[in-house]
Protein backbone atom coordinates (compact mmCIF):
# COMPACT_ATOMS: atom_id res chain seq x y z
CA UNK A 1 0.00 0.00 0.00
CA UNK A 2 2.79 2.40 1.01
CA UNK A 3 4.66 1.38 -2.08
CA UNK A 4 1.69 2.19 -4.31
CA UNK A 5 1.33 5.63 -2.71
CA UNK A 6 5.04 6.33 -3.24
CA UNK A 7 4.76 5.16 -6.84
CA UNK A 8 1.80 7.39 -7.55
CA UNK A 9 3.53 10.41 -5.98
CA UNK A 10 6.59 9.83 -8.18
CA UNK A 11 4.37 9.36 -11.21
CA UNK A 12 2.53 12.60 -10.48
CA UNK A 13 5.84 14.47 -10.16
CA UNK A 14 7.09 13.06 -13.46
CA UNK A 15 3.85 13.89 -15.27
CA UNK A 16 3.86 17.40 -13.85
CA UNK A 17 7.48 17.96 -14.91
CA UNK A 18 6.80 16.66 -18.41
CA UNK A 19 3.67 18.80 -18.72
CA UNK A 20 5.55 21.92 -17.62
CA UNK A 21 8.38 21.11 -20.01
CA UNK A 22 6.16 20.55 -23.02
CA UNK A 23 3.84 23.45 -22.26
CA UNK A 24 6.70 25.78 -23.22
CA UNK A 25 6.65 24.45 -26.80
CA UNK A 26 3.51 25.22 -28.82
CA UNK A 27 2.45 22.11 -30.68
CA UNK A 28 2.29 22.12 -34.45
CA UNK A 29 4.20 25.35 -34.97
CA UNK A 30 7.45 25.50 -36.89
CA UNK A 31 9.96 26.28 -34.24
CA UNK A 32 12.93 24.68 -35.91
CA UNK A 33 14.62 26.30 -38.86
CA UNK A 34 15.59 22.96 -40.39
CA UNK A 35 11.92 21.89 -40.55
CA UNK A 36 11.00 25.11 -42.29
CA UNK A 37 13.86 24.60 -44.71
CA UNK A 38 12.63 21.09 -45.60
CA UNK A 39 9.05 22.29 -46.06
CA UNK A 40 10.10 25.17 -48.31
CA UNK A 41 12.77 23.48 -50.42
CA UNK A 42 12.04 19.73 -50.11
CA UNK A 43 9.76 19.34 -53.10
CA UNK A 44 12.00 21.36 -55.40
CA UNK A 45 15.22 19.67 -54.32
CA UNK A 46 14.13 16.03 -54.25
CA UNK A 47 11.12 15.91 -56.58
CA UNK A 48 9.11 13.77 -54.17
CA UNK A 49 5.54 14.88 -53.54
CA UNK A 50 5.49 13.26 -50.09
CA UNK A 51 7.68 15.47 -47.90
CA UNK A 52 8.19 12.71 -45.32
CA UNK A 53 9.75 10.50 -47.97
CA UNK A 54 12.09 13.25 -49.06
CA UNK A 55 13.27 13.67 -45.48
CA UNK A 56 13.52 9.96 -44.73
CA UNK A 57 15.27 8.88 -47.91
CA UNK A 58 17.07 11.95 -49.18
CA UNK A 59 18.09 14.31 -46.39
CA UNK A 60 18.35 11.52 -43.82
CA UNK A 61 19.07 8.59 -46.14
CA UNK A 62 22.04 7.40 -44.14
CA UNK A 63 19.89 7.10 -41.00
CA UNK A 64 17.46 4.97 -42.96
CA UNK A 65 20.29 2.66 -43.96
CA UNK A 66 21.08 2.38 -40.25
CA UNK A 67 17.45 1.57 -39.43
CA UNK A 68 17.35 -1.12 -42.08
CA UNK A 69 20.51 -2.68 -40.70
CA UNK A 70 19.09 -2.59 -37.15
CA UNK A 71 16.04 -4.45 -38.45
CA UNK A 72 18.29 -6.95 -40.18
CA UNK A 73 20.23 -7.49 -36.95
CA UNK A 74 16.98 -8.06 -35.06
CA UNK A 75 15.74 -10.62 -37.60
CA UNK A 76 19.09 -12.40 -37.56
CA UNK A 77 19.03 -12.43 -33.75
CA UNK A 78 15.58 -14.02 -33.68
CA UNK A 79 16.66 -16.62 -36.22
CA UNK A 80 19.82 -17.48 -34.26
CA UNK A 81 17.90 -17.66 -30.98
CA UNK A 82 15.35 -20.08 -32.38
CA UNK A 83 18.01 -22.09 -34.17
CA UNK A 84 19.77 -22.57 -30.84
CA UNK A 85 16.51 -23.30 -29.03
CA UNK A 86 15.49 -25.78 -31.71
CA UNK A 87 18.68 -27.72 -31.23
CA UNK A 88 17.76 -28.85 -27.73
CA UNK A 89 14.12 -29.84 -27.55
CA UNK A 90 11.07 -28.89 -29.49
CA UNK A 91 7.72 -29.15 -27.79
CA UNK A 92 4.84 -30.66 -29.63
CA UNK A 93 1.63 -28.79 -29.52
CA UNK A 94 -1.77 -29.58 -30.90
CA UNK A 95 -3.06 -26.66 -32.90
CA UNK A 96 -6.70 -26.88 -33.76
CA UNK A 97 -7.43 -26.38 -37.41
CA UNK A 98 -9.03 -22.99 -38.13
CA UNK A 99 -12.58 -23.18 -39.35
CA UNK A 100 -13.81 -23.18 -42.90
CA UNK A 101 -14.77 -19.49 -43.01
CA UNK A 102 -11.32 -18.33 -41.90
CA UNK A 103 -9.52 -20.61 -44.34
CA UNK A 104 -11.52 -19.62 -47.41
CA UNK A 105 -11.70 -15.95 -46.43
CA UNK A 106 -7.99 -15.58 -45.85
CA UNK A 107 -7.30 -17.26 -49.15
CA UNK A 108 -9.46 -14.59 -50.81
CA UNK A 109 -8.02 -11.67 -48.84
CA UNK A 110 -4.32 -12.59 -49.01
CA UNK A 111 -3.68 -11.40 -52.62
CA UNK A 112 -5.42 -8.13 -51.87
CA UNK A 113 -3.18 -7.57 -48.85
CA UNK A 114 -0.13 -8.18 -51.04
CA UNK A 115 -1.50 -5.76 -53.64
CA UNK A 116 -2.18 -3.11 -51.02
CA UNK A 117 1.27 -3.44 -49.45
CA UNK A 118 3.03 -3.20 -52.79
CA UNK A 119 0.86 -0.24 -53.75
CA UNK A 120 1.96 1.51 -50.57
CA UNK A 121 5.66 1.02 -51.11
CA UNK A 122 5.61 1.68 -54.85
CA UNK A 123 3.75 4.96 -54.28
CA UNK A 124 5.92 5.83 -51.29
CA UNK A 125 7.15 9.09 -52.83
CA UNK A 126 3.64 10.24 -53.79
CA UNK A 127 1.25 9.21 -51.03
CA UNK A 128 1.69 8.59 -47.30
CA UNK A 129 3.48 5.40 -46.48
CA UNK A 130 6.57 3.80 -47.84
CA UNK A 131 8.84 0.82 -47.63
CA UNK A 132 8.52 0.16 -43.93
CA UNK A 133 4.74 0.44 -43.88
CA UNK A 134 4.18 -1.56 -47.06
CA UNK A 135 6.64 -4.23 -46.00
CA UNK A 136 4.99 -4.70 -42.64
CA UNK A 137 1.56 -4.88 -44.26
CA UNK A 138 2.80 -7.64 -46.57
CA UNK A 139 4.30 -9.45 -43.59
CA UNK A 140 0.97 -9.26 -41.76
CA UNK A 141 -0.59 -10.88 -44.84
CA UNK A 142 1.88 -13.73 -44.42
CA UNK A 143 0.92 -13.88 -40.76
CA UNK A 144 -2.73 -14.31 -41.79
CA UNK A 145 -1.72 -17.16 -44.07
CA UNK A 146 0.23 -18.83 -41.27
CA UNK A 147 -2.68 -18.50 -38.88
CA UNK A 148 -5.22 -19.92 -41.28
CA UNK A 149 -3.07 -22.74 -42.66
CA UNK A 150 -0.88 -23.81 -39.73
CA UNK A 151 1.20 -26.20 -41.83
CA UNK A 152 2.55 -23.54 -44.16
CA UNK A 153 6.26 -22.91 -44.42
CA UNK A 154 7.75 -20.22 -46.60
CA UNK A 155 10.82 -20.83 -48.67
CA UNK A 156 13.53 -19.53 -46.34
CA UNK A 157 16.26 -19.55 -48.97
CA UNK A 158 14.08 -17.44 -51.25
CA UNK A 159 13.45 -15.00 -48.41
CA UNK A 160 17.17 -14.69 -47.71
CA UNK A 161 17.93 -14.09 -51.39
CA UNK A 162 15.24 -11.39 -51.66
CA UNK A 163 16.49 -9.73 -48.48
CA UNK A 164 20.10 -9.78 -49.59
CA UNK A 165 19.33 -8.44 -53.04
CA UNK A 166 17.21 -5.63 -51.62
CA UNK A 167 19.89 -4.59 -49.14
CA UNK A 168 22.48 -4.77 -51.91
CA UNK A 169 20.36 -2.52 -54.12
CA UNK A 170 20.18 0.11 -51.39
CA UNK A 171 23.92 0.07 -50.67
CA UNK A 172 24.95 -0.02 -54.34
CA UNK A 173 22.65 2.90 -55.18
CA UNK A 174 24.27 4.78 -52.33
CA UNK A 175 27.78 3.89 -53.43
CA UNK A 176 27.19 5.05 -57.02
CA UNK A 177 26.75 8.54 -55.61
CA UNK A 178 30.28 8.38 -54.21
CA UNK A 179 31.82 7.98 -57.66
CA UNK A 180 29.97 10.93 -59.16
CA UNK A 181 31.54 14.40 -59.20
CA UNK A 182 29.32 15.49 -56.26
CA UNK A 183 30.97 12.99 -53.87
CA UNK A 184 28.21 12.13 -51.50
CA UNK A 185 26.74 8.88 -50.30
CA UNK A 186 23.15 8.35 -51.55
CA UNK A 187 23.38 11.25 -53.99
CA UNK A 188 20.19 11.45 -56.05
CA UNK A 189 21.78 11.05 -59.47
CA UNK A 190 18.75 10.15 -61.58
CA UNK A 191 16.58 12.88 -63.17
CA UNK A 192 13.81 14.24 -60.96
CA UNK A 193 11.04 13.90 -63.52
CA UNK A 194 7.63 15.50 -63.27
CA UNK A 195 6.19 16.02 -59.81
CA UNK A 196 3.34 13.66 -58.82
CA UNK A 197 4.03 11.00 -61.41
CA UNK A 198 5.18 7.51 -60.61
CA UNK A 199 8.54 7.82 -62.33
CA UNK A 200 9.86 10.83 -60.47
CA UNK A 201 12.16 11.79 -57.61
CA UNK A 202 15.17 9.96 -59.04
CA UNK A 203 16.39 7.06 -56.92
CA UNK A 204 13.89 7.47 -54.06
CA UNK A 205 11.21 5.07 -55.41
CA UNK A 206 13.83 2.44 -56.21
CA UNK A 207 15.19 2.65 -52.68
CA UNK A 208 11.70 2.48 -51.21
CA UNK A 209 10.84 -0.60 -53.27
CA UNK A 210 14.07 -2.22 -52.07
CA UNK A 211 13.24 -1.33 -48.45
CA UNK A 212 9.73 -2.72 -48.93
CA UNK A 213 11.04 -6.08 -50.13
CA UNK A 214 13.65 -6.15 -47.38
CA UNK A 215 11.25 -5.33 -44.55
CA UNK A 216 8.61 -7.74 -45.86
CA UNK A 217 11.08 -10.62 -46.12
CA UNK A 218 12.59 -9.88 -42.71
CA UNK A 219 9.25 -9.73 -40.91
CA UNK A 220 8.02 -12.80 -42.79
CA UNK A 221 11.19 -14.57 -41.66
CA UNK A 222 10.59 -13.59 -38.03
CA UNK A 223 6.96 -14.74 -38.22
CA UNK A 224 8.06 -17.96 -39.88
CA UNK A 225 10.60 -18.63 -37.13
CA UNK A 226 8.12 -18.00 -34.35
CA UNK A 227 5.25 -19.93 -35.90
CA UNK A 228 7.61 -22.81 -36.56
CA UNK A 229 8.46 -22.84 -32.86
CA UNK A 230 4.79 -23.38 -32.14
CA UNK A 231 3.86 -25.66 -34.99
CA UNK A 232 6.80 -27.74 -36.19
CA UNK A 233 6.63 -31.29 -35.02
CA UNK A 234 9.75 -33.14 -34.01
CA UNK A 235 13.10 -32.12 -35.42
CA UNK A 236 12.60 -30.33 -38.69
CA UNK A 237 15.44 -28.31 -39.98
Amino acid at each position, binding site marked *: MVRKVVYSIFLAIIVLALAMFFAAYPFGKNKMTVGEYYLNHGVAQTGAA*NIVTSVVLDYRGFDTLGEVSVLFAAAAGVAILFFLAGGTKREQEDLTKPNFVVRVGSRIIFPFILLFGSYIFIHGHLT*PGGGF*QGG*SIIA*SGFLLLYLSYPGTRTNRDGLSIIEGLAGLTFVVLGLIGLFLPQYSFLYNFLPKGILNTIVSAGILPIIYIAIGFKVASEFAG*IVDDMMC*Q*VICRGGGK
Partner: protein
Amino acid sequence: MILVSWVLIILMIALAILSIELKNLIAAVVAVGAVSLVISLLFLLIQAPDVAMAEASIGAALTMAIYIIGVRKTERSEKDG
Protein backbone atom coordinates in the same frame (compact mmCIF):
# COMPACT_ATOMS: atom_id res chain seq x y z
CA MET B 1 -11.74 17.30 -33.15
CA ILE B 2 -10.12 18.20 -29.85
CA LEU B 3 -12.91 16.40 -27.99
CA VAL B 4 -12.36 13.27 -30.09
CA SER B 5 -8.64 13.33 -29.38
CA TRP B 6 -9.25 13.72 -25.63
CA VAL B 7 -11.67 10.76 -25.67
CA LEU B 8 -9.05 8.71 -27.53
CA ILE B 9 -6.30 9.72 -25.10
CA ILE B 10 -8.42 8.72 -22.08
CA LEU B 11 -9.31 5.43 -23.79
CA MET B 12 -5.64 4.80 -24.49
CA ILE B 13 -4.62 5.42 -20.88
CA ALA B 14 -7.42 3.18 -19.63
CA LEU B 15 -6.35 0.38 -21.97
CA ALA B 16 -2.72 0.77 -20.89
CA ILE B 17 -3.69 0.47 -17.21
CA LEU B 18 -5.86 -2.53 -18.12
CA SER B 19 -2.95 -4.21 -19.88
CA ILE B 20 -0.87 -3.90 -16.71
CA GLU B 21 -3.59 -5.02 -14.33
CA LEU B 22 -4.94 -8.04 -16.26
CA LYS B 23 -3.68 -11.37 -14.99
CA ASN B 24 -4.55 -13.34 -18.11
CA LEU B 25 -1.61 -12.57 -20.36
CA ILE B 26 -3.47 -13.15 -23.64
CA ALA B 27 -6.03 -10.54 -22.58
CA ALA B 28 -3.21 -8.19 -21.60
CA VAL B 29 -1.64 -8.61 -25.04
CA VAL B 30 -4.98 -7.81 -26.66
CA ALA B 31 -5.14 -4.65 -24.54
CA VAL B 32 -1.64 -3.68 -25.72
CA GLY B 33 -2.73 -4.15 -29.33
CA ALA B 34 -5.77 -1.98 -28.70
CA VAL B 35 -3.48 0.70 -27.23
CA SER B 36 -1.43 0.81 -30.41
CA LEU B 37 -4.60 0.91 -32.52
CA VAL B 38 -5.78 3.97 -30.56
CA ILE B 39 -2.32 5.52 -30.90
CA SER B 40 -2.49 5.09 -34.66
CA LEU B 41 -5.88 6.86 -34.70
CA LEU B 42 -4.31 9.70 -32.71
CA PHE B 43 -1.45 9.92 -35.20
CA LEU B 44 -4.04 10.15 -37.96
CA LEU B 45 -5.78 12.97 -36.09
CA ILE B 46 -2.58 15.01 -35.86
CA GLN B 47 -2.05 14.47 -39.60
CA ALA B 48 0.80 12.00 -39.56
CA PRO B 49 -0.55 9.21 -41.79
CA ASP B 50 2.88 7.68 -42.40
CA VAL B 51 3.44 7.02 -38.72
CA ALA B 52 -0.19 5.92 -38.29
CA MET B 53 0.22 3.25 -40.95
CA ALA B 54 3.42 1.93 -39.45
CA GLU B 55 1.90 1.90 -35.96
CA ALA B 56 -1.25 0.12 -37.10
CA SER B 57 0.50 -2.61 -39.04
CA ILE B 58 3.48 -3.21 -36.77
CA GLY B 59 2.02 -2.41 -33.36
CA ALA B 60 -1.40 -3.88 -33.78
CA ALA B 61 -0.68 -6.87 -35.99
CA LEU B 62 2.89 -8.12 -35.93
CA THR B 63 3.90 -7.24 -32.37
CA MET B 64 0.68 -8.70 -31.04
CA ALA B 65 1.23 -11.93 -32.92
CA ILE B 66 4.79 -12.21 -31.64
CA TYR B 67 3.64 -11.56 -28.05
CA ILE B 68 0.88 -14.15 -28.37
CA ILE B 69 3.30 -16.76 -29.68
CA GLY B 70 5.62 -15.92 -26.79
CA VAL B 71 2.79 -16.29 -24.27
CA ARG B 72 1.84 -19.63 -25.79
CA LYS B 73 5.38 -20.87 -25.35
CA THR B 74 5.62 -19.75 -21.69
CA GLU B 75 3.00 -19.12 -19.01
CA ARG B 76 -0.61 -18.35 -19.72
CA SER B 77 -1.29 -16.19 -16.67
CA GLU B 78 0.62 -13.98 -14.31
CA LYS B 79 1.14 -15.12 -10.73
CA ASP B 80 0.58 -12.84 -7.76
CA GLY B 81 3.64 -11.64 -5.99
